[in-house]
């Protein structure tokens, strides 16, 4: 790939990236969220019908404007989100698009199942190919997905975070397969956040940041510190002003929170005016923890206390009325009312507060909406245009404003600036700072490390559903957080953590030894 670019409305997601992958090589692609890894690979797999730059496969220049074209040129891609049809048998999924048929067009079931069984065997699955995909576990499905892509006999294989749902043994098995494919001369692109995996399997590493290629290293030259530095960059000091938060008493206390299969025995405390960051890789259970904490999702065990009063699990409306609110990570799915005017979005969380005896107060609504519209600098022709017509950054401002309007005691922010341009990001950060200055406690989930490090007073690190430790402001750096989230960094022992955080702090739930992976 030479000088490949892809422009999204408002941002250049991939900026003239050169990437060369040799046959018989495992080439790791690393970078923070939003660095452009997935976009680059989507270009390669023919997701977009417009991009700039050249792509050459086997010396030949090709245009990849549809997934079918990409497939034809031998590009096989295993996506992070699975693309299997759940009610259909494994065999039909694996061989979708080229089911063996006789000359009447009828499927030859025997041949179908036999071929599928061979592919399953190759990826180490002893499953009956007649079973429906819906009946097997997510990690088995992940391997089926890989079998499906391999059955197309690709010459370039792209794996996007393939191990996120695999156990240790399955990961080892996958690595054996990758090594075997490498021997057979495939070019393999391996996308991962997990440093140990990259060092185990890759021959070379390319790091992307902000859509640009930061350099390619052979694995012999690379060290974890070096890679992390390349990924993280040096943007914090310019962007985040020094802040002197006034941190008060404990507002929210979470004790032994557990939701089976998502997070386990999580305890922490949050204080007035404090911004508490929550770090972790995707799949570490951060979002799930936040949603259960406020009552949007079930909680199996543990208690959440706000100002000493217990928050009933599963009753989000009550939590909101008490001032514990959650800003969703997916504004399109459950954040905004895209088909309603901005003004109505801004006051959507105030229906209870702006009504007396069941009657609503339009004048009050309008005044609040107008004030928020102005203070957050929402760029729109008027507050009466539909929220869906706004740009991502402005949508995100509206979403934040909806919660600012409720003057919450505790605000949980889940990826508050995802897919947002720099100006909007700064405005959102200013709004958050204004809120904490008034005493609101913020729990910040962010995969944007400069943001997490720049905004947080303290950071909790989650890994595989457990809280594995916490870092104070003075020890925060992008490198440290990234290494910790990878389970790479030796924390001070839990005991020191407890004594250092003092009043209101809770012992971290798990020590380092208890984690699954090294």
């Amino acid at each position, binding site marked *: 790939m030479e000088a490949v670019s892809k422009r999204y409305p408002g941002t250049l997601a991939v900026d003239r990236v050169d990437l060369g992958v040799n046959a018989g090589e495992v080439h790791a692609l690393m970078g923070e969220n939003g660095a452009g890894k997935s976009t680059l690979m989507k270009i390669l797999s023919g997701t977009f019908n417009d991009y700039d730059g050249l792509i050459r496969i086997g010396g030949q220049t090709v245009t990849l404007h549809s997934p079918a074209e990409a497939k034809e040129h031998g590009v096989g891609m295993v996506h992070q989100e699975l693309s299997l049809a759940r009610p259909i048998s494994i065999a039909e999924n694996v061989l979708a698009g080229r089911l063996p048929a006789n000359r009447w067009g009828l499927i030859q079931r025997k041949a179908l199942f036999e071929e599928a069984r061979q592919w399953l065997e190759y990826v180490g699955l002893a499953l009956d190919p007649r079973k429906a995909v819906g009946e097997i576990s997510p990690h088995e499905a992940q391997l089926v997905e890989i079998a499906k892509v391999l059955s197309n006999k690709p010459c370039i294989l792209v794996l996007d975070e393939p191990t996120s749902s695999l156990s240790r043994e399955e990961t080892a098995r996958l690595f054996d397969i990758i090594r075997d494919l490498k021997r057979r001369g495939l070019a393999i692109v391996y996308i991962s956040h997990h440093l140990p995996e990259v060092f185990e399997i890759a021959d070379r590493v390319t790091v992307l940041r902000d859509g640009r290629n930061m350099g390619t290293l052979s694995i012999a030259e690379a060290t974890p510190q070096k890679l992390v530095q390349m990924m993280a960059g040096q943007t914090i000091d310019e962007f985040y002003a020094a802040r002197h938060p006034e941190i008060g008493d404990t507002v929210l206390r979470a004790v032994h929170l557990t939701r089976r299969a998502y997070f386990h025995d999580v305890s922490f405390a949050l204080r007035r005016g404090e911004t508490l960051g929550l770090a972790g890789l995707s799949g570490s259970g951060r979002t799930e923890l936040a949603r259960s904490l406020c009552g949007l999702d079930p909680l199996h065990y543990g208690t959440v206390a706000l100002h000493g009063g217990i928050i009933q699990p599963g009753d989000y*409306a009550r939590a909101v009325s008490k001032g514990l609110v959650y800003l969703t990570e997916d504004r399109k799915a459950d954040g905004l*009312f895209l*088909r309603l*005017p901005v003004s109505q979005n801004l006051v*959507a969380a105030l229906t209870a507060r702006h009504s007396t005896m*069941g009657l609503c107060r339009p004048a009050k609504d309008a005044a609040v909406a107008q004030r928020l519209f102005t203070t957050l600098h929402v760029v729109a022709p008027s507050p009466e245009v539909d929220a869906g017509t706004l740009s991502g950054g402005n949508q995100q401002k509206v979403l934040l404003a909806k919660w600012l309007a409720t003057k919450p005691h505790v605000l949980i922010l889940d990826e508050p600036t995802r897919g947002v341009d720099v100006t909007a990001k700064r405005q959102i950060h200013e709004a958050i700072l204004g809120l904490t200055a008034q005493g609101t406690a913020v729990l910040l989930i962010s995969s944007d490390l400069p943001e997490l490090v720049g905004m947080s007073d303290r950071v909790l690190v989650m890994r595989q559903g457990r809280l594995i430790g916490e870092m104070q402001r003075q020890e925060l750096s992008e490198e440290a957080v990234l290494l910790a989230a990878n389970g790479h960094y030796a924390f001070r022992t839990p005991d020191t953590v407890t004594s250092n955080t003092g009043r209101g702090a809770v012992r971290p739930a798990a020590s380092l030894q208890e984690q699954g992976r090294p």
Partner: protein
Amino acid sequence: MNTQTTSSSKRSAARTALETAGIYAVAATLLVAGVLASPDFLTAENLLSILSGVALLGMVACGMAFITYSGNMADLSLPTTMAFSGIIAVASLSLGIVPALLLGVLAGLAIGAMNGLVVGKLNANPILWTLAVAFFMEGFMRFTWSNNQLYPEIEPGTPGAAFIGIFRLRTGPVPLIVLVMLALFAVAHLVMTRTRFGRESRLVGSSRAAARSSGIRVSRVVFFNFLAAAFAASVAGIFLTSMNKLGVFYLGQGYDFKAVTAVVIGGVMLSGGRGHIPGVFGGVLVIGLLTNIMTFLGITAFRQNIVTGLVFIAVVGFQQYQLRARGKDYA
């Protein structure tokens, strides 16, 4: 600041007026067409008869609007709710006219409550669930009353005679049913625009997921929407039973589809969250005018159904097109 505030609310009022204007333009066109079709069309008598003709439909449409508006598309059990309310009212006439009417409405509300609970709390698909309820209720009524029609006593002075009389009550020249319909529309309009419930219904209709994560008790809102629809249908059902002078399971058939048609041509989006009651009233008027003109032209009832069906298809197609034009991204 203050002037800006009022101007923004004025703007949204203007938008509402503009959206409603469309359906009234159609109604006006039909009025002109009616005058051209027959000289007898534009008489007070005929216009009142048009209104009485659509009064029951108007009541049901008024209730159905809550269902559509809150994103639940349609309550297909409203026809059986109408029949059931009527039957219960007739069956309990021995208790006196007032208790009978109350019990009739309560019976309808019970169905609405059940629907609201299942759709709101258990997230059942509203169309499929209410279809099943309609099927069940029809069987239930046929079984309980052994397929019979229930006749009220019609001796003068009995509650039965009073029951049959309510359909024919008038204040001056205006029939009671027209007044009740107008009252329901007025109340519905106020509820939708001026109450917390109305506002939350719009949010739930626009996006159930976003409403939930804005701290709105979605299941409660959906519950009361179904209750409101059942209430309107019960009132209409009692009038319908009074008109027919008998209670029977098949009364109310066809009202579901006609009501949805009125709601949708009145500008309430099938996808929820958009539209308003004055538009629905316009939709009801258009259906009334259309039916009346077709009758004047000597078009038979079955062919009228074909026309109503075509109008529905055209309007839904147009709405879908509009949504797509706004961008599939957020339609």
